[in-house]
């Protein structure tokens, strides 16, 4: 009876004591997390909320901000310039990611042995990474000058005529792609070099004993074991494709005739040239959503086939 009473009374007290303990623990955790949470909220989540809010409102001339539903998204999708920027960004993504990763991988495999000669070559290849993109773009303004620029100067020696690298709408985007590959390949090489260090050498020795050739060793050992690195580099490259437009700003401002306009620069134009904050916010929401989806997808699919252990 007493036990029963005790049990009846005690259970809740124990529970209460336990939950109080958990609460104080939670409180301590919250307290410890608070500084970073405050900053995260103030500088990440709050702006994200604001952008979403902005995407759903419109501010036209002579009237106050009003709710607009999905109107901004409709206007955005109807805008030919947005379509052009999206298409350009896709071409730019394929044109920069595939070659820069391929080159980075080739360079990393080729330069992985730590000889003095290789170290020198690595430095040379890594050099463009040290330049800020703005500075690189300013340099390439003179590399790309038709007729007089460095590129045409050497091409002329090979008998080619002058090319309007940045002024021809068919070529301009490819010029920017070339600059980006030159700039990023060395950076990605660094990740691959690190990834290669983690592959145990005995695997290669075993493969050699089995009579596997260089290509076989690369395809069967190096490539699969570089999976996690590849997935990581791919995500970095995807993010770069959306977030780096310094060269567009310096070299072309999206021209000629929108042929080099990329999403981020389009957003800038809508916000600061057209003062169309609703459309800019809608474009931001769409591109960030697309980027998130792509990153998740690439991490998921690549991870499925990844061997994390050697």
């Amino acid at each position, binding site marked *: 009876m007493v036990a029963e009473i005790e049990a009846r009374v005690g259970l809740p007290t124990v529970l209460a004591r336990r939950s109080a303990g958990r609460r104080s623990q939670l409180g301590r955790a919250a307290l410890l997390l608070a500084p970073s949470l405050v900053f995260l909220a103030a500088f990440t989540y709050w702006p994200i909320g604001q952008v979403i809010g902005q995407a759903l409102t419109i501010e036209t*001339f*002579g009237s106050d901000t009003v709710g607009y539903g999905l109107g901004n998204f409709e206007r955005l999708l109807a805008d030919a310039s947005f379509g052009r920027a999206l298409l350009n960004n896709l071409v730019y993504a394929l044109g920069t990611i595939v070659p820069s990763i391929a080159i980075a991988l080739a360079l990393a495999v080729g330069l992985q042995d730590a000889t003095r000669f290789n170290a020198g070559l690595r430095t040379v290849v890594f050099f463009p990474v040290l330049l800020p993109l703005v500075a690189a773009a300013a340099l390439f303004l003179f590399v790309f*000058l038709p007729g*007089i620029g460095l590129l045409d100067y050497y091409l002329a020696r090979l008998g080619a005529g002058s090319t309007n690298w940045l002024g*021809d709408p068919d070529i301009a985007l490819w010029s920017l792609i070339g600059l980006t590959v030159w700039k990023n390949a060395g950076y990605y090489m660094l990740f691959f070099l690190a990834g290669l260090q983690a592959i145990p050498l005995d695997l290669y020795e075993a493969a050699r004993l089995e009579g596997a050739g260089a290509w076989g060793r690369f395809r069967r050992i190096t490539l699969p074991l570089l999976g996690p690195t590849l997935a990581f580099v791919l995500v970095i490259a995807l993010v770069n494709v959306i977030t780096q437009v310094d060269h567009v700003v310096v070299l072309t401002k999206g021209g*000629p*005739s929108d042929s080099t306009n990329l999403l981020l620069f389009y957003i800038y*134009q809508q916000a600061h040239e057209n003062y169309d904050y609703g459309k800019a916010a809608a474009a931001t929401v769409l591109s960030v959503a697309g980027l998130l989806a792509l990153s998740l997808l690439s991490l998921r699919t690549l991870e499925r086939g990844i061997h994390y252990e050697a």
Partner: protein
Amino acid sequence: MSRIASAALAAALTLGIGSGAALAATDIEMFFPVPVEGKLAKEMKNLMDRFNAEHPDIKATAVYTGSYDETNIKTRAAIKAGRPPAAVIMSANFVLEYQINGEIQPLDPLIQADGQTPDAFMGKFWPALHGNARFAGKVWAAPFHNSTPLLYFNADHFKAAGLDPNNPPKTWAEWVDAAKKLTVRDGDTVKRYGLMLPGNYDYLGWVMTALTMSNGGLYYNPEFGGEVFYDTPSMLGALTLVDNMAHKYKVMPDGVTDGKAVSTAFFAGQASMVVLSTGSLSFIRQNMKDNYGVAFVPRNLRNAVAIGGASLIMPKGLSDERRQASWTLIKWLTSPEISGHWSRFTGYFAPNKGAYELPEMKTFIAENPDAKVALDQLQYAQSWFATYNTVAVRKALEDEVQAVIAGKKKPAEALKAAQAKADDIMRPYVEQTALNLPN
């Protein structure tokens, strides 16, 4: 600091001890863009030091805010944030937007408080500059430094091609003829172009304005910011001339050439004639090795170009002291002496006519006849195009003109597309103004 200063000042005034010696200086900030970095920014600092030394009751700071477009963005952001600068050197064709949006204050009350009429105040500046500064019945800006497009030519190339450098082309017919003679070919490839025009955004719109105006056109409605005249015979003639230069006579590069590439090609002797701003005069004078000359932009129906450059504006919402201090700074910067000094340093012409009456300016003009040509063209200059959402409306045309220069479109269809796009951009303003009718 400034709050304490003004509190102290207020206390001093209420106690009746406000003597001539100010207790503390009024702090003001001025945003300024520099089209050419480095030297000009340094010279602006020198000017501010001089101003502050001459005006102990004011402490003015010049804040470098990047290009014209970036200055526009930063000014707008500062106004939105409720911390407007006391004065801004703003691209002259953006002033209208600030007036449309009600973000700047008219200068008339300040002018009148000085015992001057607005007519007398504006009378100090060249007539061509009035349109972008005084409109809708009020004075909104004070011109600071200005320019017009100018034809620069390589005099050595002229002589070698049998042309007279003392008699540069005046009409479009002479211009085409000269460009043909100056172009050097080797089979199908061009070794030297007779003509290059800057085709990057902003510059291209300005050059097209000059060509259209030279063809009798207006380009935009100077009285109403909701109208541009893109799909018109005057613009069609101008754009067809450009198209012909590139594709019929092949004396100009196919595709867009950036303004920087144009000046580089001119220095390298790869372009014999170029159209660039008078603001580039000092730059070209210092870098051109061959002999060169300058001339008016050639005409078809009349001599006419649009002005460029920047004016001083004053945002709304300043305290009385700051407004007075800002006004003192604006008057000082646009005075004949400072105006002339800045003009000689940069190559822009001085908006204040009085600057050219000063002896040092007379000597300078005598020594640099090219500066005189720029000045002479001023009497044919007109207002710079300014509309609701100027940059986007300008880009609507530039994208299409670029397509024509690259051989992707024909002039007539390009202009129809440009007009449609521009009308679309200006619609919100037009609906609130010209199409806002009584029920």
